[in-house]
Each structure stands twice: as C-alpha cells, then as structure tokens.
C-alpha cells in the first residue's frame, strides 16, 4: 500500500515535471515573462528578507532635520517623507505589508474557488444551483462599498481580519472559472470510466479532473494575485486598509491626494505607485505565459 502510494507520487511528480518543462520552455521563448518572473522573485524575497534587517525603531524617532528631503540627499536614496522617515525603507516595509495581505488572500480565494468550483460542477443539481444563486447574489451587491463599510464597523482588526474581509467577495471569480472548466472536463468519458473503475467522487475530482485543470490553476493564481494586490492597495489608498502605523503601498500612494505633495514631493508617492504597477504588470505577463502553456497542454490532450 505504501509502495503503491510511492509509485503514485513519483508519477504525479513526473506529471508536475512535464508542466515545469513546458513552462520553462515558454518562459525561455518569452523574454518579458522571464524578466517578470525574476523581478517578482527578487521583490518578494528582497522585501521579506530585507524588512527583517530594518530595526524596529527606524521610524519611531522622527528626525525634524531630515523631513521632506529630495532623493539622494543625506544618504536617503529615495528621500524622506514629511516625518523624516526614509522613503526607501518605508517602501520596503509597505511592500512587505501589502504582500502579507495579498498572498494569503490569493491562497484563500484560489483554495475556495477550486474546491467549490469542482464540487459545484461535478455534483451539479441542487448543490450547484444553491452555490450559483449565492454567487449571483454576491456579484450584484455593491462589493467595494460593503467592504469599506465592514471595515469601518470592525474598527479594531489585524492583518488576518483584513485577509478574510477582502476574501469575502473575491472567491466568486475563481469559483466560476473553475466551475466552467470542470463542466467542460466532466463531459469526457474518462470520468465515466473512472466511476466504473470504482473510484469515489472525491478521487475522481481530485485525482482525475484536477490534474487536467492544474495548468490553468497556476495561470489563474498569478492573475488573481495581481488582482488582489490591486484590491488591497486600493482599499489602503482610500484609507481603510491597514492602520497608518503599518503602511501599505496604497497608504504611501494616498499621500498624492495632497496636491502639494503630488507636485512638489513626488518621491513620496511615485516609488510606491511604480512598485504596484511593476508587480501587477509582471504578474500579468507571468500569468499570460502560464495560460499559454496551459492552453497548449489542453490542445495537446
């Protein structure tokens, strides 16, 4: 039994391996996707590792002499803000905070999405009907406004509260995506064959159907990640994300609402804005390259 499991494992590795191979081939052909990938890796690791080296008190003692410094003065690469805090360090911390929300949100909505999407399409019938009504309903309520309202009602929250609140409405898209894919996949005779081979519904869903969606899953994850960065920074930009003491990239961009800052001290909001753009754009390029890989494999099958 254990041995059988081992074989299955090595085979699923072989499958993952072939996806990896196809993905590597695609990224080698698509230089922009390649650059995006390395950029993303560097930013994510750089930000998480780098922020560990920033002392806790880096921002606590406000330096009145160093306020509103332009970039490249007094050793501040990106200048300082109105409180004399170093902009570069701020951006690193803010990026870490933003990613600490958007990464868990992505994981939550992809997990919920694939789970509900598979189940809903596979079982069909009443189960599917009820979930479709729920998603229909959630997609007609004014999502952003309700999110903001919820965040004002829950006035004392942690990163995790924020993760759950943002996920509350965002899983709908990924669920519908996987539901549609599963519906198409379910029509194949191999699903019937599996049933006749004595496999349980759960085994058919996860061992038979899911491997056929996995390439799409990776592509969709990249695109959802980009969307969640936008959502989190957008909410923070409006002032309802993390508290001011834990800045997000959106909080930094929010400084641009002051026309004075926007025109006179662009270094306070430009770097954060560029970082948001660069992260989203690179994730889009990665997602598209992965989608091409997924489509090729789909057509191959």
């Amino acid at each position, binding site marked *: 039994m254990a041995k059988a499991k081992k074989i299955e494992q090595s085979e699923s590795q072989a499958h993952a391996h072939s996806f990896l191979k196809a993905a590597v081939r695609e990224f080698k052909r698509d230089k922009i996707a390649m650059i995006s990938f390395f950029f993303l890796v560097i930013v994510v690791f750089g930000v998480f590792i780098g922020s560990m080296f920033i002392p806790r008190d880096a921002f606590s003692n406000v330096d009145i002499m160093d306020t509103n410094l332009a970039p490249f003065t007094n050793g501040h690469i990106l200048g300082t803000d109105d409180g004399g805090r170093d902009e570069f360090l701020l951006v690193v911390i803010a990026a870490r905070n933003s990613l600490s929300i958007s990464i868990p949100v992505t994981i939550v909505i992809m997990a919920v999405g694939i789970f509900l999407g598979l189940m809903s399409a596979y079982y069909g019938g009443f189960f599917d009907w009820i979930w479709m009504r729920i998603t229909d309903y959630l997609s007609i309520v004014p999502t952003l406004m309700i999110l903001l309202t919820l965040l004002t009602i829950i006035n004392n929250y942690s990163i995790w509260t924020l993760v759950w609140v943002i996920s509350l409405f965002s899983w709908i898209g990924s669920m519908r995506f996987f539901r549609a894919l599963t519906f198409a996949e379910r029509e194949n005779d191999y699903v019937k*064959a599996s049933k006749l081979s004595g496999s349980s519904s759960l085994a058919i869903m996860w061992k038979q159907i899911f491997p*056929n969606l996995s390439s799409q899953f990776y592509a969709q994850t990249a695109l959802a990640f980009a969307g969640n960065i936008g959502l989190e920074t957008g909410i923070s930009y409006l002032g309802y994300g993390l508290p001011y003491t834990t800045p997000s990239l959106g909080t930094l961009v929010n400084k641009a609402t002051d026309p004075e800052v926007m025109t006179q001290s662009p270094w306070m909001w430009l770097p954060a804005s560029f970082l948001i753009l660069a992260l989203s754009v690179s994730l889009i390029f990665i997602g598209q390259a992965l989608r091409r890989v997924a489509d090729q494999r789909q057509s191959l099958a």
Partner: protein
Amino acid sequence: MTELLRIEDLKVHYPIRTGFWNRITDYVYAVDGVNFSINEGETYGLVGESGSGKTTIGSVIVGLEKATAGKVIYKGQDVTKASSRRKIHYNRDVQMIFQDSMSSLNPRKTVYQIIAEPLHNFEHLDNNAMDKRIKQLLDIVGLPQRTLYQYPFQFSGGQRQRIGIARAVATNPKLIVADEPVSALDLSVQAQVLNFMKDIQKEFNISYLFISHDLGVVRHMTKNIAIMHLGRFVEIGTRDDVFDDPQHIYTKRLLAAIPEMDVTNREQNKAHRLAIEKQYQDHHADYYDASGRPYPMRKLTDTHSVAMTREEAEAAGVASGKAEADALAKGGE
C-alpha cells in the same frame, strides 16, 4: 447456456421543463419498456439509429444512468439500485468500452495509471502483483511493455482503444458493454480490434453487449440481435432470424440500406429498396401506434419476436396462443 443479465421492462424517461414556472410538461421517452437477456459468454447486439436509446440502455446496465422504471437483474440479483450494485462490487464484473478512445483515457495519466485504477479499487493487489498483472494485460491487448509510462496522446486510435479494453478486462469482468467500440476507428483497424475482442471473449468467457449502428459489424460479432427504434425494441432474434427473415418494417429498411458491393444486381436491389419504402409508407399503421411509437413485442418463434399488431402477427403465420401470452406478459407496457 446460463443467463447472465436480464433487463425487465426497462424505462428511462427524461423530464422536459417548460413554461413560466419551469414545470415538467412532458417526457422524452429515451427507453420505453425493454426486455432482453444476455447469456454467459455470448455477444448480444443492440442496433439502432442515433437517438434510439441504445446507448442509454448500455449506461443503465453499467450503472452510469438511473432507470426510471424496470429492473436490471445480474446473476439473479436485482442490481437496479446503486446501493445494491456497490454491495457486490458490480462494476468489477460489468465493465464498459467507450466509443471515443481519446476522451475515455485521462490525458494526464500514463497507461500504467489508467489500467491500475480498477485494479487498485477492486483487487487490492500488492505492488508486485499489480505490476505483473498490468504487464500481463498489456500482453493480452498486444501493446509493448515500453509503452507502460507513455501518455494516451502518444498512441494511435486503435492502440488507444486497446488500452481502453485492457482497462475494461483488468478485473476479469463477466460482461462488457461495448458502446460503438470501433465506429471512431479506420476501417482497416476496425477488423483488427473486433477480432481481438472476439479472441479475448473466447479466452476469458466474457459476454458483450455490443451497441452499434453498423449492421455489418453486428453480423460479424453477435449471436442475438435486438433492433431498436424510438426507445423500444422492434425486433429481437438470432442473427439468422434478423438478417434472413426480417419481419418489422424498420428492420427491413435497415437491411435494405446496407450498400451492396455486387453491381450485377443493381437494378434489382434498387427495386427492392423502393418496394420496402413503399411498404413503409403504406403500412406504417401496422408497425407504429397512433402516437407513432412501435407496438409491444409479439413472439413469432422461440427466438424471434417482433413489434406489430395481432393481425399482422397472425398474418406472419406463427404466434401460438401460449407464445403470445408469454410475450404479452413479458412485454409489459
């Protein structure tokens, strides 16, 4: 000859929902009262045009579809309900070969994984026994050992159908439902696969329910044949009954439609076809009731039954009182 599987008055109806409240207003009578039985080790042919309900019968037998009414009896046990099928590991004994070999093999699974699936679920073999059994199965279907870890897209259509057959016979089943197993294949490969199916039948004493629209293939494969039209059987008989002495007009039309290779009798064949067509137009009411569906079956001989009115049956000159009563009791409706 022992009976393996019996179908009693099987009905499969699908509701049609229409109107403002989406209520059920009518039914599609996919299968509407069908009786037949399959003996051990023999091939039973099921012939009909697309939409006649023949695939639905196959699906009900293997358990992919639920019967609206009627019974499926396997070795004397009622297996109509899913729970009773599970109890006796029904699908270990009753398997299926699919028409579309591409779609019936998971593209992300190797040949090994595909054949291992039923073994894993039903046989609980240890690893060595599993390897051995899978290699043995590959031998049986005539595929080389090196293909064990290849994916389905690396094979030709005929080879893929062989993998499907290997999966179907993996658990030593007693009955295999073959739903148009060769209609997606090239003609040259068709004969190969058919003969090979016959070989494993002889070797392992398997029964087939052979579903097809191709009368030539059915004649080659089967002993008993049922002709199906509009959800009901119109004629049941041995191969000779059906091919040499067709009684129902639909059977006659089907047989007349087989292209003849011999051109010497071209005119004669054409005249024959036209005569049948004329008979169909003139005597439609003798074979189909007011709602356009075939009549219940009437027994002509012990092996041969036809769906027609009493008068027609009498005109056909057989129908002893007892056979008649039997057929009515069995035919239901």
